[in-house]
Structures are given as C-alpha cells and as structure tokens.
C-alpha cells in the first residue's frame, strides 16, 4: 500500500490557484523528489500535506488514512513528519530536548506521573533519552546534546531538524529544501545522511530541492510542478531530457 496517496489536490487563494489538480503516490521506502521553479507551489503542497492549509479540493491519504479535517499535530500521528525551508528549531532548548519534544506522543504518562515521578514516568523518560541520544549519534550530533540548538553551526541545525522529524516515528518524511544554504561538501554529506535515514529507518522520503545534483543523485522518482500543476513525472534520466521541464526552468 502507498504511504502517501494524493488525489486531485487543489487550493485557491482568492483568485489564484496555487496548487491545481496535484496527484502523487509515494510507495513504501521510496525516495521521491518534488522540484519546480521558484513560486511553483512546492512548499504549498507540503503545507497541504501537513495540514497547515486546508485544500479547496482533493484528498490526501497518509498510510491509508484520510487527513481531511485533521490538525497538523493529528496528521503527524498518522505517520508523516516534516522539516522546514527556513529551519525551525526550538532555539533556546537543548539539542537533546529538541528531539525529546518530538518524542512526546510516543510517551503516555500523565500530569500526575510527572509530579510523583512514578515508574512509568522514569521508564518512558529513560526511553526518550535513549531515543534522543541514538538519533543524535546517527547524525553525528551526540557531542552537542547539551548545547542550545541555536548555537549549532548551520549544517548541523539542518541535520538536527531531520533527526527531530524522525523522533515522531514517521513512515513518511517530508524534507523542504534540506540543502538550502549548504556548501557542496555539506550537500554531499547530506545526501549520504538522507540515504542512510531511508535505509536504516525504512521511511519513505518526499523532498523538495533546488540542488539538482542532490535530486538527480538520490531520488528514485521525480515529480516536476510549475504554476501549481504537474508538468512531468519520471526517473531522473527521463526528467533530465524532458522538454517541458527544460522550458519551465530556462524559459522559452
């Protein structure tokens, strides 16, 4: 079964149709790229998928469940998790706590337990700590766990954001321009990290990216949109040769 299934997704802002009849299917453990020129509506698609915006039309199924009428926090519980174009970390919290916040819904202890610190509290907190430390070491961040998130260098902040997204135990990871602002070497590193995450955590990844080297290098399938509409779909090789795509990027 597809992890993500989107049918005829449309959103209108006033007279402007920002996303028009968008369809996509992402299979289990698949890595799909979503590309398009600036202002094509990529981030709007993400905002629709994560429930920040409500679609004018169309349906979204995550892991077979309809997201209609659900708040962003409820959609996370269906098994999708995201990062942001302009990194949104919890800046004044420690790196470790950034991850533990995202592990929130995997814990169940109530208010009273947090005050009397019963066995359940201790077990779940210890587990949360373990998860956080393990996740950080996957991304090579375990040495920074007590640092405030805002003190991390830029590339590490990007990684922390991905680690945080993973802590919600997602089946689908939505990455919004993960390589934005990175130098070629950092981008290279990031490609390895994304591949590693996909294999180790068995997640599906949908990513928006401008860096063609990254997209062509790791995506198994690519979807191209322009003016809110899909103009091409296919393997990296196919997309590279597609006339419509070249036209959209270079103009006529």
């Amino acid at each position: 079964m597809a992890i993500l299934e989107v049918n005829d997704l449309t959103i209108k802002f006033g007279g402007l149709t920002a996303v028009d009849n968008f369809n996509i299917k992402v299979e289990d453990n698949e890595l799909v790229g979503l590309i398009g020129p600036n202002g094509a509506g990529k981030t709007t698609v993400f905002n629709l998928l994560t429930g920040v915006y409500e679609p004018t039309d169309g349906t979204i199924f995550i892991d077979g469940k309809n997201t209609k009428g659900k708040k962003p926090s409820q959609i996370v519980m269906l098994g999708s998790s995201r990062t942001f174009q302009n990194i949104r970390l919890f800046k004044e919290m420690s790196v470790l706590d950034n991850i533990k916040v995202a592990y929130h819904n995997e814990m169940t202890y109530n208010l009273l337990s947090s005050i009397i610190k019963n066995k359940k509290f201790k077990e779940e907190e210890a587990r949360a700590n373990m998860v956080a430390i393990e996740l950080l070491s996957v991304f090579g961040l375990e040495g920074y766990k007590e640092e405030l998130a805002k003190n991390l260098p830029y590339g590490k902040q990007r990684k922390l954001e991905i680690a945080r997204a993973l802590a919600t135990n997602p089946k689908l990871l939505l990455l919004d321009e993960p390589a934005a602002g990175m130098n070629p070497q950092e981008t290279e590193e990031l490609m390895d990290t994304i591949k590693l995450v996909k294999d180790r955590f068995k997640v599906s990844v949908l990513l928006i990216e401008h860096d063609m080297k990254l997209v062509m290098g790791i995506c198994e399938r690519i979807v191209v949109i322009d003016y809110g509409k899909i103009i091409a779909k296919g393997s990296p090789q196919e997309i590279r040769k597609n006339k419509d795509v070249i036209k959209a990027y270079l103009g006529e």
Partner: protein
Amino acid sequence: MDVELFIKQIINSLNTGSIYALVAIGYTMVYGIIRLINFAHGEIMMFGAYFAFIIATSIPVGLPFFVIVLVSMALAALMGILTEKIAYKKLRTAPRISALITAIGMSLFLQNLAQLIFGANPKVMPQVISNEPIMFGNIAVPQVMMYTISMSIGIMILLTLFVKKTRAGKAMRAVSQDKEAAMLMGININGIISLTFAIGSALGALGGIFYSIAYSQVYPTLGVMTGLKAFIAAVFGGIGNIGGAMIGGYAIGFIETMTKGYISSRWSDAIVFGVLILILLFKPSGILGKNVKEKV
C-alpha cells in the same frame, strides 16, 4: 424617553470621545511605528495637563487659552521625544517584552516624578475657558465642551491630511510598513520616530488639558484610567490605524457615557473592558485593522 437628556448625553459622549480619540492617536501612532504599547503615554497626557496648570497659574497676566495649549503641547512633545531617546531607542531590536516592561517602568517613573514635584493631592485647574455655557435652545453646553469637540475634530482632520499628503506623513507610513525598506529609500528613521512621538505626545497633552479643565483638577494618576481607556479605543479601532483610533475614541466615549447615563455608573468600567474583550475575541485586529497570518 427624555429627548433633551438624550441629546445632552450625546454631547457628553462626543466630549469624552474627543479626549479618548486624541489620546488614542498617540498610542496607535507609536504602535504603528515601533510596535510598542507605550504605557507611558497616559503619563505624557498627565504632564501636559500639569504644564497647562503651571503656565496658567504662574503667569499673572491672563494668557489666551491657545497660547497655554500650544506651549504645553510643545513641552509634552519634547517630553515624548526624550522618553523615546532615553528609554526605548536602545531596545528597538531587543525582545518585545523588554521594551514593554521599559514602557511600564517609564509610566511608573513619570507618575512618581509628578507626585514628587506636584504632590499627590489634586490641584484645582484654573478656569482658562469661560465657564458660561452656550445655549442651544433649551440645552446648555459648557464652552469647554465646545472647544474640546471642535478643536479635536479640527486637529484630527489636519493630522489626516498631514499623514496622507505631506512628505513626512508618507515617510511615516513607509516606516510603519517596513522599517528596513524605508531606510534603504533614504528615510531618516530616527527623525520619523521622533516626529511620531512628538505628534502623539502633543495630541495626548491636549487631551489631558481638556480632561483636566472638564473635571477642573490635575493629579498625578490622571493618565492611568483615561490612558487605559484611550488605549482600549485604539485597540477597538485597530491598533496602528490612525482613523481607527479616532473612531475607537468616539465609540468608547459613547459606550461609557451611555452606560453611565442609562445603565449604571458603577459598572461602566466593567462594560468598557467587556467591550474590549468582545472586540478582541471576534475581531482582534479591530474595526479597521487587517489580519496578518504568519508565513510557513
């Protein structure tokens, strides 16, 4: 219903509304430019009233009302500019809450300063305007009310023209929209901010003078409640919006006067604050304000 009484209440509410509107403009202009609730504005209003009091009592020759008013307004404007330079300028890039606390601190400081200089007891404001009422048929309207209403409306028209038509007014609007872009266009940000504080403080002082003449007294905490209600008026109209502050001022003046006159004077404050809460719940950006959503 007693028509005469009703007309009187309407005139009363125009009078109170004018004062609120004058003071509300200062709140709203400062908020528009530096996004700060200037809690010290009520105290500037109070000082404006004290300035008028000092001028009227210390100079034996009976100065014309307009001279007293203009000098007091100029002094208050200076005070406003100084407040900004000393207390707010350094905090323009600091967290919003620090600036807010500073504003509250300035408010308390000025209040206590006034108490130290003038004493805590109310002083009797001399009658700088003849207290002979003007008769409209059977309805007697105190001259001070005539002055308040007509001068306020006149000044508000002037202010609107200033903001809409002049270069400085346009620069002011530009700064409130986007400080950085305005700076890149060569607008002197500091100058515009000072100008904003000057105008707001001068109008606030005028409001304070009218208030103190109407109640024929000046006291250090004069700006607290009136300031708070003027602030509500600014929120009511849409904070940051000058036209909104004027409408809000008259609306709050009307609501307050009518509840005092027809419902209960004890509960009028609660009703005014209740209106504030309702407005915030149903249209937080005020009558004329726009809703802004955060971009993801």
